[in-house]
């Protein structure tokens, strides 16, 4: 088990129901792999730093979750194939370890 963080930049033209179905799809991948979502943070619409796929803004969402390393490849596959997601950024959370070393 490791803790990860994924940030999604989503198509800004999506309706609320479509957004919810997208979240459910991603959450299902995590929970099916016996993972646990620890935090969700919806940033809402933000302007992009540069144009991506002809979009000038995107809906940003941050998900923190603990999951086994084997599930990550499956999760990445799902997110990459998902057309509603413009970009994603998956990072390992190591902040706790770093702060321990410093103390």
């Amino acid at each position: 088990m490791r803790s990860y963080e994924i940030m999604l930049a989503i198509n800004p033209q999506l309706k609320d129901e479509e957004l919810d179905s997208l979240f459910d799809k991603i959450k299902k991948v995590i929970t099916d792999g016996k993972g646990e979502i620890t935090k969700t943070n919806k940033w809402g619409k933000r302007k992009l730093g540069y144009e991506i796929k002809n979009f000038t803004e995107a809906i940003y969402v941050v998900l923190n979750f603990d999951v086994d390393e084997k599930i990550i490849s499956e999760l990445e596959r799902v997110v990459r194939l998902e057309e509603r997601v413009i970009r994603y950024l998956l990072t390992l959370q190591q902040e706790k370890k770093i702060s321990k070393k410093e103390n």
Partner: protein
Amino acid sequence: MTNYGFFKRPQKKVCFFCKEKVVADYKNIDLLKRFISEQGKILSRRATGNCSKHQRTLAVAIKRAREIGLLPYVAK
């Protein structure tokens, strides 16, 4: 020794991240914006005064923010 006053050494800068005890994070865009130039370039260590460790984490954070579209690669 006489001090003529015009040999004043520039004040040594202190690493912002050491001073404030924060870690650069790609989500904290307002903070990252202080360390990029008008063109969107990462400022050098000489300009920011950061220590090498934190300059490295800062550079990674800015690059991550660029990747997801929070910061521009090149600002017009």
